[in-house]
């Protein structure tokens, strides 16, 4: 079997570049954030403080999940064609339906949970353009009685349930990109599970990061209970993702058939991503285990480091899957190298732009829908009506 080494079929090349790494990465982050939101909605009431922030942070990621695909298309003006010609026998066409379900349930959730704030802003906002936006957002209903808010909460629960299912289905594209290539390395049954857990870890890490940063920006104290609870889940998500990933690699290194390809490629071409996965996961798990005992700023610093390293680790996992699977030749006797170009549609700068786009959109969304109720409302131009003159801070 190993008589010929370094043999690559002549038409073998890397078709999916760094942009296709970014795409499953963004989608897995969405899965994780939605799951944390569902946890706070159904089980852990102590995450209430971060609930609106998670919604505000999820929407930009859902909106920009399509960006890498648009950039990857040779004819982007035909992007709408996937919706014009629905086709249930194509997994990628079903993605459109799942994606739209996710987007609309998220928008619904946002509207129902921000409705009270929107109504108050529509009455009190000084800036006339902003007030017009809020008035349009109220859809003409200014009823924020206890009864209607209770109904809102019930609807949010139903929407969260639908959104959770859609988000987990959405993460199938994460492993689809590995499986479609039908490379023996990634043609394994534990792959979907390992990738959902990777996404959950990345999403929870991003929620921690955004929460700590947003608390700094809004000059309020980050609640230790919130960060601790998310970190508790993050520990187990990361443990599962890392464990399954390692089992996968070790299993194939142990099995004789693809041992050469896997060992050689992880020892040379993928050595940096693999090292990031192993060392980064170990570091994050250790910090998560012992960071719980710290207090105050030290704890926040440790959790920020953990969150950033988990995000990098999951990116390296996605890199291993999308790029790594393409590097091994179908002959299993050779592999090729890949380094992304800097410029151009498929380049490194475009990928960085796509990764930063959600944060730019997040600033716009947070401008209109502040995730934390402000302590002091803006001085009202018109006298507010009686039933809405409640200080927002009291609800927290």
């Amino acid at each position: 079997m190993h008589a010929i080494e370094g043999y690559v079929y002549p038409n073998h090349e890397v078709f999916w570049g760094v942009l296709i790494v970014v795409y499953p990465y963004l989608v897995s982050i969405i899965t994780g954030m939605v799951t944390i939101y569902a946890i706070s909605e159904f089980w852990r009431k102590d995450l209430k403080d971060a609930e609106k922030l998670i919604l505000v942070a999820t929407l930009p990621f859902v909106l920009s999940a399509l960006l890498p695909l648009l950039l990857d298309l040779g004819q982007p003006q035909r992007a709408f064609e996937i919706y014009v010609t629905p086709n249930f026998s194509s997994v990628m066409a079903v993605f459109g339906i799942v994606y739209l379900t996710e987007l609309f349930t998220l928008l619904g959730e946002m509207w129902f949970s921000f409705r009270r704030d929107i109504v108050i802003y529509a009455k009190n906002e000084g800036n006339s353009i902003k007030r017009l936006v809020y008035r349009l957002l109220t859809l003409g209903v200014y009823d924020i009685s206890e009864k209607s808010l209770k109904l809102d909460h019930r609807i949010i629960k139903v929407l969260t349930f639908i959104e959770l299912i859609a988000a987990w289905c959405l993460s199938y594209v994460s492993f689809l990109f590995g499986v479609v290539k039908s490379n023996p390395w990634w043609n394994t049954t534990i792959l979907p599970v390992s990738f959902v857990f990777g996404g959950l870890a990345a999403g929870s890490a991003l929620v921690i990061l955004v929460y700590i940063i947003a608390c700094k920006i809004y000059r309020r104290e980050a609640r230790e209970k919130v960060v601790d609870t998310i970190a508790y889940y993050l520990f187990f998500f990361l443990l599962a993702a890392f464990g399954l990933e390692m089992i996968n690699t070790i299993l194939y290194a142990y099995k004789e058939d693809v041992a050469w390809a896997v060992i050689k490629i992880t020892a040379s071409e993928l050595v940096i991503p693999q090292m990031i996965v192993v060392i980064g996961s170990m570091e994050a798990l250790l910090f998560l285990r012992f960071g719980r005992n710290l207090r105050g700023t030290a704890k926040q610093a440790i959790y920020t480091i953990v969150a950033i390293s988990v995000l990098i680790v999951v990116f390296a996992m996605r890199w291993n899957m999308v790029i790594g699977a393409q590097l091994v030749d179908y002959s299993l006797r050779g592999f090729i190298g890949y380094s992304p170009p800097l410029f151009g549609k498929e380049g490194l700068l475009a990928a960085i732009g796509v990764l930063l786009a959600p944060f730019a959109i997040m600033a716009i969304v947070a401008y209109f829908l502040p995730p934390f109720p402000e302590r002091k409302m803006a001085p009202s131009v018109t006298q507010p009506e009686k039933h809405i003159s409640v200080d927002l801070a009291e609800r927290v």
Partner: protein
Amino acid sequence: MKHVVRALALFILILVVFIGGIFVLNSLGEEIYPGYADRLMGVSGHYGMDRNQKELLKEPKYTGKEYCRECHQKEYELSEKGGHKFDCETCHGYGGGHPPKDMGVENTREFCLNCHKPVLGRSDYRLLEDWESHGYLDRPCTVCHDPHYPWFG
């Protein structure tokens, strides 16, 4: 209750517009979508530009024998006399853009041996059974054979 009804109505409106758009675009045919969007972007054909148009845009590379005849009458007639009757571009490379561009020549031993070495299924050529020792091994065949008329006498 009123706000839920309004939100639901808005959602259904968006859904109807979206699905209606799909049906309308589907029934209008490919000339409208993606045809119209393609024309705005300046592309045509299923895979971007029409492939015939794409080929026509390319500069022609190979010019043919008659193009060479306009200046190199002597070599043309000499090569027509023998059994080769090759196009000049077989050995000299493509002639597109030649008057300013310099022409090269392929006169290595290996190039001639491509046909004159005994190869299975090529019995009709003048074969060199002693190709491994024939002539000067370190010099091209054209030292002894006139490249345009390689027959002695």
